[in-house]
């Protein structure tokens, strides 16, 4: 009895030793920063000299900051175009490639390759693809007698360009997620529906689509969370322009904090953005918890 308790004590001590590095780093680079972010958002911290308490003035300023709300609107526009297209296209590709053959493996690989590229490299490649005169896209449109726009420098198409690049980069991994989801749909559902005389569309409408609902929800919330944190592509492709049409909240926070050194105000903006992201993360967490309990 005594021996076993002693053994347990030893085990627990070793366990704490094992998790010490993780907890130490977690404390320094997550716990402290989270509380500090909250504190900084009530100050006028500017890196160089001051860090005075200014009460709610950052938050008051934020309410009337039309540029901030424009960045949210930009991301909103991005989201309502990007998320449905993302789901539609990656599901279609997954349905198409949900069969077994050697060629299918090659097709999957080709669709997956763009997800490997960094956002910066992808955006760099697409600067050239979207070149108004010599670019690939307008070259193609030229074959059909269409004169393509100057994608990146017109306010009406700049965000669409970013949507194209990010779609290109995300379809592959969502295809894999959908393929995993499709494999989880039990075969007997299809077999019994075939006996009932359901055609391919009915099978999709009444079996595949409802069965994939958790996957679709997950892909949606993850894309929304990603959209709210959009930065790299906007920074490289358009530098937030033209006329702030592609400026995102993270971009604005980065500029406010690290270019203009108005870190107190930037912290307040970051907090507002973080709350939005957190809302979707919570939904996401609830859903995946419902699927399979983790703890």
């Amino acid at each position, binding site marked *: 009895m005594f021996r076993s308790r002693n053994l*347990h004590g030893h*085990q*627990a001590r*070793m*366990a704490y030793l*094992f*998790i010490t*590095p*993780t907890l130490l*780093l*977690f404390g320094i*680079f*997550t716990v*402290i*920063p*989270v509380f500090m*972010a909250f504190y*900084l958002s009530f100050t006028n911290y500017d890196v160089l000299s001051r860090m005075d308490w200014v009460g709610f003035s950052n938050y008051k300023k934020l309410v009337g900051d039309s540029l901030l709300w424009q960045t949210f609107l930009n991301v909103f526009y991005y989201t309502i175009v990007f998320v449905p297209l993302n789901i539609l296209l990656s599901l279609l590709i997954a349905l*198409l*490639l949900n*069969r077994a053959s050697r060629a299918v493996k090659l*097709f999957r690989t080709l*669709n997956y*390759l*763009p997800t490997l*590229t*960094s*956002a*910066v*490299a992808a955006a*760099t*490649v*697409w600067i*050239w693809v979207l*070149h108004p*005169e*010599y670019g690939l896209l307008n070259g193609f449109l030229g074959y059909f007698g269409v004169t393509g726009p100057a994608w990146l420098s017109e306010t009406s198409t700049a965000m669409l360009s970013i949507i194209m690049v990010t779609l*290109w980069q995300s*379809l592959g991994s969502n295809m894999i*997620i959908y393929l*995993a989801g499709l494999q989880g749909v039990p075969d007997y559902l299809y077999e019994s529906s075939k006996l009932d005389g359901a055609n391919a569309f009915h099978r999709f409408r009444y079996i595949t689509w409802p069965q994939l609902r958790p*996957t679709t929800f*997950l892909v949606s919330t993850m894309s929304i*969370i990603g959209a709210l*944190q959009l*930065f790299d592509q906007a920074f*490289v492709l358009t530098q937030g322009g033209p006329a702030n049409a592609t400026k995102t909240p993270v971009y604005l*926070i*980065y500029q406010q*904090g*690290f270019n203009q050194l108005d870190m107190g105000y930037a912290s307040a903006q*970051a*907090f507002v*953005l*973080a709350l939005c*992201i*957190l809302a979707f*993360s919570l939904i996401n967490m609830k859903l*995946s918890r419902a699927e399979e309990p*983790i703890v």
Partner: protein
Amino acid sequence: MHTASIQSYARRKRALGTVLFYIVASIISLAMFLPFLWSLLTSLKPDDEIFALPIKWLPSQFTLEHYRDAFTTVPFFKYFGNSLYLAVMGVVTNLFFGSLSGYAFAKLSFKLNKPLFRVLLAAMMIPGVVTMIPSFYVLMHIPFIGGNDWLGNGGHGLVNSFWAIILPGASGTFAVFFMRQFFLTLPNDMMEVARIEGAGEFRIFWQIYLPLTKPALATLGIFTFQAGWNAFLWPMIVLNDPAKHTIQMGLQAFSYNYQTDFGPMMAGALVAILPILILFVLLQKYFVQGIAFSGVKG
């Protein structure tokens, strides 16, 4: 006779379906691959053929001059090395600390096991943007480092050092979570036998359990490498010294400063993609497993 014609009709229909499938799948896959092909061809074309109308797909002669230009205009080789170092350090630290903690949470009993793990799990939801500014502050004010006094003032701390990237990411919560889930699937009896034989806890972890997690380590390693190699915003914030820039930063600066040099620009982009591509070709199955995991578990 009649059944035979129905059968041949069904066979024809299936053959037609297969042909249609190959056509559609080829078109989509080609469209997804086209930007790569296009940038590769651009990077190998002489300048006057890059700017040609209508599009000239194949170069009259292949040239590597754009690759030479990219590497001589900016120190791409140095950037490449910096990124490689940072990505490898990220992999090594995350695999070690992630599996060490993951093992403790999965296999060892201690009072705060569940509460601490729940806190870590909840912290996974905290978006990077909220800790961005204060993390910078913390790194700048680490005492006794980078000219700082014991209160952390006076110098620049770890800002402008590679540690500013390595330390905050050294034991990612995802790594801990991922490894814990894997250790949970392993049986406990090996541990008990080893304890009876007098093996220490670290030896049990290191020599018995860790070798069994090779597939999980491979998957986690790949993802950590990819994340480290592709990182952009945080390195741009903490690394101001041009000698410490990463390849993503170098590529962005190049495409911003040499806006019409598409040949070298594409060469640089392809070089920045290459290491991940090589990893993918070598370790393809681990990539796909990892996505399925993150997709199912969130």
